[in-house]
């Protein structure tokens, strides 16, 4: 479904701020794979997802989605294949527009936008049903401005928008990190349900090792612009936080045990 071959990305090349964030990443996802991504700050996780979304072009390598080479496509053209949720709840929705308008914008992702109605009656019904699934009471607030919603509600809505037209690829970048624990659990729960329902091929970044283990059928760890750990299947199911920690320390060449991790 997703095929990443040897991609490289250097920011601010030739300046003092030069930073090589991706160093030859290879990654192939099968149809329906749900992959969790972990790694320290600055490991290149977000950069990897941004490369796939086409936020900027990569320096080297190729990316194809569902057999289509998208390496040279601009961000808005790749959007046809990709649903995204970001860490910042402000980033994924248009705050000054209504809930239903946001959903209607997402429903038209990948289509030509002309002078047809921005939203139809039939759509409203559909959205009401979909919002019910989230169980946040949003189905009664279709015409509320998104700016009035809480961070958790916005993330749940962004998730719904991302999944609305069954994207070939779902990219989640720490989408629960800015939420309180209870809301985070709820959004994660909704994520699991939505991914399962439509068998979406998913990449989910998280800083929470327990979540990384509990969700998905495959786990990758990034360090310094590379994928350093890749476990799946039975091995992934048996994984413990302690094992993961050990792997991380091995990869990063440090052996300081970080207590904070165990709290996750």
């Amino acid at each position: 479904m997703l095929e990443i071959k040897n991609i490289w990305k250097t920011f601010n090349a030739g300046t003092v701020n030069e930073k090589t964030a991706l160093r030859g990443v290879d990654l192939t996802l099968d149809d329906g794979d749900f992959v969790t991504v972990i790694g320290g700050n600055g490991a290149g996780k977000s950069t990897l997802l941004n490369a796939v979304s086409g936020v900027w072009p990569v320096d080297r390598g190729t990316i194809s989605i569902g057999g289509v080479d998208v390496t040279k496509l601009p961000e808005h053209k790749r959007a046809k294949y990709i649903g995204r949720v970001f860490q910042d709840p402000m980033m994924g929705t248009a705050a000054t527009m209504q809930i239903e308008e946001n959903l209607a914008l997402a429903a038209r992702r990948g289509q030509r936008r002309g002078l047809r109605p921005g939203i139809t009656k039939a759509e409203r019904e559909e959205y009401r049903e979909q919002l019910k699934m989230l169980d946040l009471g949003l189905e009664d607030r279709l015409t509320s401005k998104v700016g009035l919603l809480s961070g958790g509600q916005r993330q749940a809505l962004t998730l719904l928008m991302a999944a609305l037209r069954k994207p070939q690829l779902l990219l989640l970048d720490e989408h629960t990190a800015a939420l309180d624990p209870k809301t985070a659990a709820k959004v994660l729960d909704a994520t699991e349900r939505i991914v399962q329902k439509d068998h979406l091929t998913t990449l989910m970044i998280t800083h929470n090792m327990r979540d990384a283990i509990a969700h998905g059928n495959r786990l990758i760890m990034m360090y310094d612009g590379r994928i350093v750990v890749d476990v799946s299947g039975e091995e992934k199911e048996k994984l413990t936080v302690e094992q993961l920690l050990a792997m991380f320390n091995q990869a990063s060449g440090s052996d300081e045990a970080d207590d904070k991790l165990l709290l996750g």
Partner: protein
Amino acid sequence: MANFLNALPGAVSQGLIWGIMAIGVYITYKILDIADLTVDGSFCTGGAVFVMLFGSGVNLWVAMLVAFLAGMLAGLVTGLLHTACGIPAILAGILTQLGLYSINLAIMDMRASQSIAVTDNGVLNRLLVSLRFLNTEKFPFYRHPIFVVGVFTAAIIAILYWFFGRELGAALRATGSNQNMARAQGINTNVTKVLGLMLSNGLVALAGALLSQYSGGNEINVGRGAIVIGLAAVIIGEVLLDKVFRNFALKLLSVSIGAILYYIVIQAVLQMGLNPNYLKLLTAVVVGLFLSIPYWKGKYFRGYKKMRTVGINMVKIDGETGGDDRA
């Protein structure tokens, strides 16, 4: 007072015409979130194109249409400077505006002003609006500028209301609301920005064409400071009517009302004996004040709320704080 009342219909008519320009400013400033300075030039372009075409016998509606298209062309230039050449929007607008000064002069046959032969009754009667139609004894009510421009404004609001409810219009609004989200939803934000700038400047030029008819000619400095008048109208409308007018069409209407109020106030201070020279200073000060209100409010009443959105409950793998990946 009697003087003021006598001058009122004229002030309202002018306000209505400038209100159409202000609706154009609303599209860029409020919907697209771009401060577009092209308007100071494109307003005059509309008047220049209209006066020259109409003067050479072209049909009124055709002349207005060409004026509208000329404005769109100006918007296109700014849009391309901004999106295709990466020039900040404000600077792109300033460049176009500067260039337009020469172009406007060229359109007007290298003369600083051109007039319409309104003393000729045949010509006058072909005009859509003129301050001569303010005379209710000589002309029927349906020729009165308030009526004509009022209907014109209503039609423009209706068309815009329709357009912004369409897929393309919604894409434009999304671009102004959150570019990042817009792109993630497959919207080519460069295209929507250019389109918005074209639509806006088209309306601004149309208002210029109306004003040239109203005042019986066009002169090269007519649009100077138009952006500030537009902002004044948008802000006055917002401050007074934001709580009452929720619907999008009504918001556009409030811009028009804002422009009318602006012209009534201007008329009032002129009647009070203010030297017209100080009008621009007065406008700049008032708009400056109103623009700073939201900032000061935000600074003192909701200062630290924003800091709470990100960063809670993150379980970090290592202790350092990483770079910001949301560039």
